[in-house]
């Protein structure tokens, strides 16, 4: 068995044993320029990230709001491709063999690379999971087995509108963790109702043992802690990417900015876990 196969599972098992919640940052690879991405990943880990979702830039990010759209545009100006993103993961692995890395993005770059070539190269680079937002389990076909054979876990989304029947299917096919989209809308949207999210997660727990992580709407320590009370982990994307955007002209200041906001969230999550 591939030694990397269960990095995500191992991490969540350790978190559960320690009574802690997962902190999962998302950054777009290549934003604001490809040379910085690996440093940013390490900065996230230093600030307490448990899993890193690394965005593969795409020209047409239909499920994303303006913040991540612009991050994709900044990355694509430099020609950041899926093959480069895999090189970044390999470079990250030179200094970090433990933190799980999930590639997040849209299907077409993988489709164009070819599923078999992607699976092989992603495994070799040290990728642990794949979340293609426009690939629901029903459309995975034989690629589910292909990915599994290469130690790549398929991460799926669940939404407030997901029917119980679909949720059952998704929970059945899901691996690693489930990404619960807390809001209707695109990434970076506004308000979050932790109580409603909690009620929905409770009904999902009847369907699956997988960790339930919540994304969309988490922007600071307070929102992270509120969601941390009802979920197994929090995913923070636009709040980080927005800070990267503000500092795009001074990228050397970005790692510190990432450490600050993630540190605040880590602290809030852990304080809650201790209480």
């Amino acid at each position, binding site marked *: 068995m591939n030694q990397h196969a269960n990095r995500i599972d191992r991490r969540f098992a350790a978190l559960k044993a320690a009574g802690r919640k997962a902190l999962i940052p998302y950054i777009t690879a290549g934003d604001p320029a490809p040379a910085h991405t690996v440093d940013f990943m390490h900065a996230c880990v230093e600030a307490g990230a448990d899993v890193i979702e690394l965005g593969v830039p795409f020209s047409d990010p239909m499920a994303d709001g303006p913040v991540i759209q612009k991050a994709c545009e900044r990355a694509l100006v430099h020609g950041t*491709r*899926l093959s480069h993103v895999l090189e970044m993961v390999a470079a990250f692995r030179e200094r970090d063999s433990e933190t799980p890395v999930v590639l997040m993005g849209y299907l*077409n770059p993988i489709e164009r690379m070819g599923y078999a070539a992607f699976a092989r190269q992603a495994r070799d680079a040290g990728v642990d999971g794949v979340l293609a937002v426009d690939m629901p389990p029903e459309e995975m076909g034989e690629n589910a087995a292909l990915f599994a054979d290469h130690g790549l876990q398929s991460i799926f989304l669940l939404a407030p509108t997901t029917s119980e029947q679909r949720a059952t299917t998704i929970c059945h096919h899901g691996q690693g963790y489930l990404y619960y*989209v807390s809001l*209707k809308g695109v990434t970076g949207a506004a308000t979050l109702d932790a109580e409603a999210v909690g009620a929905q997660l409770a009904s999902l727990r009847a369907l699956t043992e997988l960790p339930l992580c919540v994304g969309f709407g988490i922007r600071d320590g307070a929102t992270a802690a509120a969601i941390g009370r009802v979920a197994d982990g929090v995913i923070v994307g636009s709040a980080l990417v927005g800070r990267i955007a503000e500092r795009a002209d001074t990228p050397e200041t970005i790692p510190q900015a990432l450490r600050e906001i993630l540190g605040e969230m880590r602290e809030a999550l852990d304080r809650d876990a201790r209480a």
Partner: protein
Amino acid sequence: MSRFSDLTQLPDASGHFGPYGGRFVSETLSFALEELDKIYASLKHDPDFQAEFDRDLTHYVGRPSPLYHAERWSREIGGAQIWLKREDLNHTGAHKVNNTIGQALLAKRSGKPRVIAETGAGQHGVATATVAARLGLECEVYMGAEDVERQKLNVYRMRLLGAKVVPVESGSRTLKDAMNEALRDWVTNVDNTFYIIGTVAGPHPYPMLVRDFNAVAGREARRQSLEQIGRLPDALVACVGGGSNAMGLFYPFVEDEEVAMYGVEAGGDGLATGRHAAPLTANAPRGVLHGNRTYLMSDEGGQIADTHSVSAGLDYPGVGPEHALWKDVGRVEYVAADDHEVLAAFRELTRVEGIMPALESAHALAHAKKLAASLPQDKHIVVNLSGRGDKDIHTVAKIDGIEF
């Protein structure tokens, strides 16, 4: 039975046309698509719904549209007889209204008070704004900023009809970006909003239902051919961007093996230049965009390519998944007409027949001219004249160096 009979059974239950189509969407949209699937499945064979649709097509759209024998143009070309399916005479001036009438009825049944649409040339936007005005629905239309500029007339028409037109500044500022933005709106406002997609692309069930609503043109053309020509035509020609007017004309003929079909894509500056919007003709690799798998113009890294066409309505990097399958099985031959040929056809039909075609439809005319010239006079070609050219006067005038 024809060797193409299987094609009439598609899509399968999960929305696939062979390897194409499907429902490649974020989970946040799955519910809305399942809901649409249910509504359409319950109404597709409902005689009341069909009667209402037919009534609207007759009394509001003005169907059936004529099948017109372009005798003078045919004579000038000196080959096969060219017949024009006059979808340009529909209310709002294009085939697009067939589909928006149908989807508006679905919106009405779904009880949602707001509709949204994407538009390229603005014909689908106008057709959506029109049905929204008639049904008292709130309407928002997403349109690439470049298209807003080159289709000013349609933008103003939509505003007069009470729709809000939102210029989309992201990406290449054309049709694909408008569709991205409409999808973002839909996922945010899914509780009260019905998304009226304008072409036979998008996630299942859109390619199927847009086809079904447009197929009225093909059914009429088939019947009219039998009446006016005395037999089925030898060939059908239609332009293909997403492919809705071509699908509408072709679908009812799919089992008629003796009827050849030509889908004409936007050759732009010429296929060799790479500046075109002809994924089928150029054999673009398979890809996934806007919810379906199809032939898709993207670079080696899978980023969607910028397309180019003189006609905003064909300026799209993908194509409806059913067309992708029809190419593979050889039912339709896909070809391209470049901007130069298209403008020539636009001018020619205007001068010779007194019919000003949309630049989109002029792609079909450009190919029909070549095809007719290669065939004897007793052959018959039906061309889908999918829209009228008034909206393109600014574009053509600009090429002529004329400012209004």
